[in-house]
Structure formats: structure tokens, C-alpha cells
């Protein structure tokens, strides 16, 4: 077991400590032109993490803390976020990680440099409460006809929305360097992260707004979130060989 010289690792970035404003705790450990942002962490911090109820805000608080450090780096430098819960066995381990992962991390940093992540979600709007047909005084046949017409109309609306959502995604991809699909539960048509060069963000958002209006009219909602550090575009495995 470690004696407690644990370092919580948040992100890999350029080795330019002068430009970073990380706050009191986190620091940069550099190797050549790369650095890993770490903070001392008491092992007890994660002691009972598996007993935390996932609904408990403790996990959300830890995640926010992690996000805050990643964003502090991201404000000034390109960032390769490390997954939450990455704990290194001391400074030597941090250096060995940078040595072993140097080329890979550098390539990945170059890819995301100058870009930010934006999330877009499109879903069917709730059926309006007013859409219940007035059935008073209708015969059975009339009722069935009315009902079939109504279902057809709903079906048509859904098809319109699906088509518009597809066009939105296609248009946004034109302005994105990369895209990443995110979990898409029932009723959600698009849940995608786009990696957008900062110079193209205005065009990206103009396109989004144009389609958001169209989708609203067609009976759907479109939301965007961001800017995010490029969390969804750093899906790499950095290895530090066990046998050195």
C-alpha cells in the first residue's frame, strides 16, 4: 500500500506554468513541453466512494471540483482531460506517465488545441394538453375517423421533426472538426457533442439557432450546452508500461 503520497491527476497540458492560474492546490508537473496537472489528495478522500449513493450530491461535488480544475487549465491552454478518479502514485509516477504517454498525449493535445466542445440535444416536445380531441356528440365511426386523423397528424409531425433534426446535425457537422455521439434515451433524437474550432463557433451557433426555431415550430425542443473542455474527444488510453 502507498504511504499516502497520492496525487489526483486532472489533465495533461502544455508545460507552460507561467500562463496558468490554477488556484492554491493544483500544480503542474512538467516533462519536456508537456505537463500534468495534479493536486495532493488524502487517500481517505476516496475511501468510501463506492458507498456513496449515486444520487448523493457528493459525487456531483467531486465531479464539479474536477471540472473546475480542468476548466482553469482550459482557459489558457489546450487541455487533455483525464478521467475522474485518476490517482497517481507520487511525482515519479507522474513523470513516468508523461514519458510513456508523451507522443500520444502530444498528438491528442494538438488535435483539440483551439477547439471547444458544444453539446446539442433535440427531443420531441411533450404533446400539448390541448391536443385531446373533443369527442362529445360523435358517433362511433366519426370518433374512429377523428382518432385516425389525429394519429396520422402526430406521425407526420414526428417525421418532420426527425427530418429537421437530421438536417440540423448535418449542418452542424459542416462546422465541426469532430463529433461524438452521447447516450440517446427514448424521445431524444439528437444528443451529440461537436468539437468546434473557436473561429467557427459563430457560424456553428447561427446554424443552431436557425434550426432551433424551425424545430420549435415543428414541435420539438433543441438545446445547446457549452463551451466544454474537449471531454468527449479525448477518448485515448495512456499507458505507462508496468515493466518500464
Amino acid at each position: 500500500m502507498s504511504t499516502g503520497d497520492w496525487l489526483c491527476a486532472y489533465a495533461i497540458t502544455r508545460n507552460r506554468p507561467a500562463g496558468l492560474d490554477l488556484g492554491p492546490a493544483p500544480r503542474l508537473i512538467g516533462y519536456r513541453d508537456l505537463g500534468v496537472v495534479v493536486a495532493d489528495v488524502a487517500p481517505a478522500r476516496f475511501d468510501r466512494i463506492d458507498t456513496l449513493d449515486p444520487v448523493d450530491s457528493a459525487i456531483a461535488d467531486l465531479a464539479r471540483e474536477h471540472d473546475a480544475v480542468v476548466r482553469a487549465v482550459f482557459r489558457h491552454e489546450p487541455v487533455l482531460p483525464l478521467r475522474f478518479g485518476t490517482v497517481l502514485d507520487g511525482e515519479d509516477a507522474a513523470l513516468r506517465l508523461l514519458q510513456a504517454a508523451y507522443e500520444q498525449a502530444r498528438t491528442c493535445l494538438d488535435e483539440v488545441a483551439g477547439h471547444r466542445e458544444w453539446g446539442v440535444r433535440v427531443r420531441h416536445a411533450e404533446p400539448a394538453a390541448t391536443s385531446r380531441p373533443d369527442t362529445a356528440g360523435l358517433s362511433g365511426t366519426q370518433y374512429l375517423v377523428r382518432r385516425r386523423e389525429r394519429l396520422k397528424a402526430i406521425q407526420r409531425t414526428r417525421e418532420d421533426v426527425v427530418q429537421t433534426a437530421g438536417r440540423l446535425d448535418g449542418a452542424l457537422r459542416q462546422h465541426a472538426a469532430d463529433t461524438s455521439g452521447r447516450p440517446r434515451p427514448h424521445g431524444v433524437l439528437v444528443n451529440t457533442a461537436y468539437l468546434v474550432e473557436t473561429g467557427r463557433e459563430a457560424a456553428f451557433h447561427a446554424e443552431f439557432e436557425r434550426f432551433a426555431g424551425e424545430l420549435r415550430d415543428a414541435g420539438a425542443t433543441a438545446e445547446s450546452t457549452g463551451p466544454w473542455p474537449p471531454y468527449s474527444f479525448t477518448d485515448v488510453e495512456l499507458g505507462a508500461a508496468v515493466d518500464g
Partner: protein
Amino acid sequence: MADHTEAVEAVADLLDRVVHRGAVVHGDVIISLAGIDLVRLDLRLLLLGLEEAPV
């Protein structure tokens, strides 16, 4: 209700990115945290459950 859903989604967006995305480090430099994989699994189920719950 809409505010609550938005708040839940904001947390879900954050957790999915911070806990499930980002680069993974392997090897002897890493301290394996007991239970962290369980946390990830729990969260995954929770996030899907939350998002699928009727509003």
C-alpha cells in the same frame, strides 16, 4: 418541474463527461481506487434511468 429536469440534466451532462469520458491512464503509475468502477456503473445506470424517466 421543468427547472428540476433541467437541473438533473445539467448534472447528468457534467457527470457523463467528467466520470465517463476523458483519457484513461493504465499501468503501475496508477493507484486503483477500490469501488471507482462500481461508481461508474452506478452512475451509468442512474443517468440512463434519469433520462428515461417520464417527465
